């Protein structure tokens, strides 16, 4: 009969019973091991504390990129304002650290001792009420996640409940990033203005500026990144992960499968915001300041580029992409500072047009088949050479 299409006959031969597979497949396991070896062994051994701290900074952007894989790669929601959440998370921790650095003894020469220096410079004589809770580390750490996630919830609810999506959503998130930057710069008495919150020193008495502290923070950062990767992988493998993919392709149909599409979008947007916020907080504590230059449109778009270069459908790819682009940025922008922006733009266009799945896609189509041939199925996964 004419009934059997090529698809069916192919399926007959390969139709594997679709059991829920392992947490990571073979390629993912190899990628995860390689990344762990790079982050926890190779970089710490190969780099001096200054360079290691630099890579620690790059890795804070990877949190944002991983969140974008969920929002954009899986869910089709392209936020061009992730810097907002990176910044809010970063500022929440910076406020705590700044208050600790502004003890009355440290600030005795100010006209009002005991408040952050930039407030004193702006003739503010009393700590604003909304700064008060940031004396508590516990509150500040909760705020790192809760404030950006709540903000994302408000934005997400306002937009997705009204079924604003696609390009409109992207533009609005960009506008929000611009507005927040302007707000922070304009309110310098409360926010430190364009310089941001600087001169952060200790966390509960522990000097975060020492080489030793920076090395420890680098490992904490790596650990948190892997925790976020594990959470992202859990989400991707759940039915929610498949609903996101279904939504990206046929949002309308998903409603008629009985799902409230908006609540899924809001969830994944909040999750992406929370990841970005953790990255922001880790940036603050590792680099020692937070400023509006990480909140606005340009950093937000850069973070999308990191994700796109790595591969917007691969959480590990997003981390590799972030590391690679930033490493290249450091190399090139030292040599040709003006060309870098152009190069980054060109890279983005090339990735979108020629390699839509980024590095992860290239790996999957070109490198992985070779590895599979070298090490056929049943051998234990080997770490690819760096």
């Amino acid at each position, binding site marked *: 009969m004419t009934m059997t299409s090529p698809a069916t006959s192919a399926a007959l031969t390969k139709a594997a019973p679709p059991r829920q597979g392992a947490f990571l497949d073979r390629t993912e396991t190899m990628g995860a091991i390689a990344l762990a070896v790079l982050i926890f062994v190779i970089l710490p051994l190969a780099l001096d504390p200054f360079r290691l701290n630099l890579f620690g900074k790059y890795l804070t952007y990877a949190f944002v990129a991983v969140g974008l894989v969920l929002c954009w790669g899986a869910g089709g929601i392209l936020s061009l304002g992730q810097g907002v959440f990176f910044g809010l998370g970063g500022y929440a921790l910076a406020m705590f650290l700044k208050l600790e650095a502004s003890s009355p003894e440290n600030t005795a020469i100010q006209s009002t001792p005991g408040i952050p220096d930039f407030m004193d410079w702006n003739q503010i004589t009393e700590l604003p009420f909304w700064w008060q809770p940031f004396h508590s580390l516990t509150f500040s750490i909760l705020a790192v996640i809760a404030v950006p996630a709540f903000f994302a919830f408000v934005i997400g609810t306002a937009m997705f409940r009204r079924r604003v999506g696609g390009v409109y959503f992207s533009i609005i998130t960009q506008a929000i990033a611009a507005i927040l930057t302007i707000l922070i710069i304009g309110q310098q008495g409360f926010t430190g203005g364009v310089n941001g919150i600087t001169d952060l020193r200790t966390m509960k008495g522990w000097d975060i500026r020492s080489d030793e502290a920076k090395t420890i923070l680098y490992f904490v950062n790596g650990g948190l990144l892997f925790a976020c990767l594990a959470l992202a992988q*859990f989400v991707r493998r759940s039915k*929610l992960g*498949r*609903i996101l993919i279904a939504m990206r392709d046929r949002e309308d149909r998903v409603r*008629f*499968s009985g799902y*409230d599409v908006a609540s899924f979008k809001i969830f994944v947007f909040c999750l992406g915001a929370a990841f970005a916020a953790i990255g922001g907080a880790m940036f603050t504590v590792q680099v020692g300041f937070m400023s509006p230059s990480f909140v606005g449109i340009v950093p937000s778009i850069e973070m999308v580029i990191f994700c796109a270069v790595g591969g917007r459908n691969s959480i590990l790819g997003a981390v590799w992409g972030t590391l690679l682009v930033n490493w290249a940025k450091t190399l090139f922008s030292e040599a040709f500072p003006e060309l870098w922006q152009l190069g980054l733009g060109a890279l983005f266009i090339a990735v979108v047009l020629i390699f839509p799945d980024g590095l992860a896609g290239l790996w999957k189509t070109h490198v992985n088949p070779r590895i599979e041939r070298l090490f056929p199925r049943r051998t234990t996964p080997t770490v690819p050479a760096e």
Partner: protein
Amino acid sequence: MSYENPNAVLMVEDLTVSFDGFKAVDGLNFYVAPNECRVIIGPNGAGKTTVLDLICGRTKATGGSVNFKGHELLKMREDQIVHAGVGRKFQNPSVYEDLTVFENLEISYPKGYSVFGALAFRRDQQVHDRIEEIAEIIFLKDALGEKAAFLSHGQKQWLEIGMLLIQDPELLMLDEPVAGMSVAERVKTAELLNRIIADRSVIVIEHDMKFVEDIATRVTVLHQGKLLAEGSMAHVQADPKVIEVYLGH
């Protein structure tokens, strides 16, 4: 109206929608009884698809009411209408191309509809058994691991029917389920539909008159968004107005 039925599962009254002044559906009334198979026929552009769009919440009505088992559907969101027990198959097969047949059916499995429900959802034996049972009915048991994008047109139609079946809706709405199918596929589909329309109310839009005669309890004829005739197939076919606008050519 003449066919008003107080026990009706679905009561559509004065349903109207206007697109920039053009009334695609205009003051429509009809009632679907429990276990009835209602077929809607009418020339292209008569508003048949739009009627289903209005019932399932895809298009917002301008006026009227759609009452399903006491729920006013016009005030509900699409997913709430699904939960109330209304399932809809679209005219063009709409399945999730990037997912496998198994995953398509799994998404339609009526459990874990909330965000956290979906996160906690597990593929237990019950889910597996049910998906395999449905896949068998829709002739796709051997293609469960196949990406939906690689299915033939007819197979996609079956998959979408399967996605509805697994939801087990009380009211099933099918928009031209055999359109674009080969003759052999049509025969199989007719057999499939005859199986699944038992024990529930069904609204089918169909052009194939032989097929309509086979399955219809009652037929509603639409013309320019209005009800032209309603009754048994024989009754409708004998109606001069119907012959003029629809069957005549």
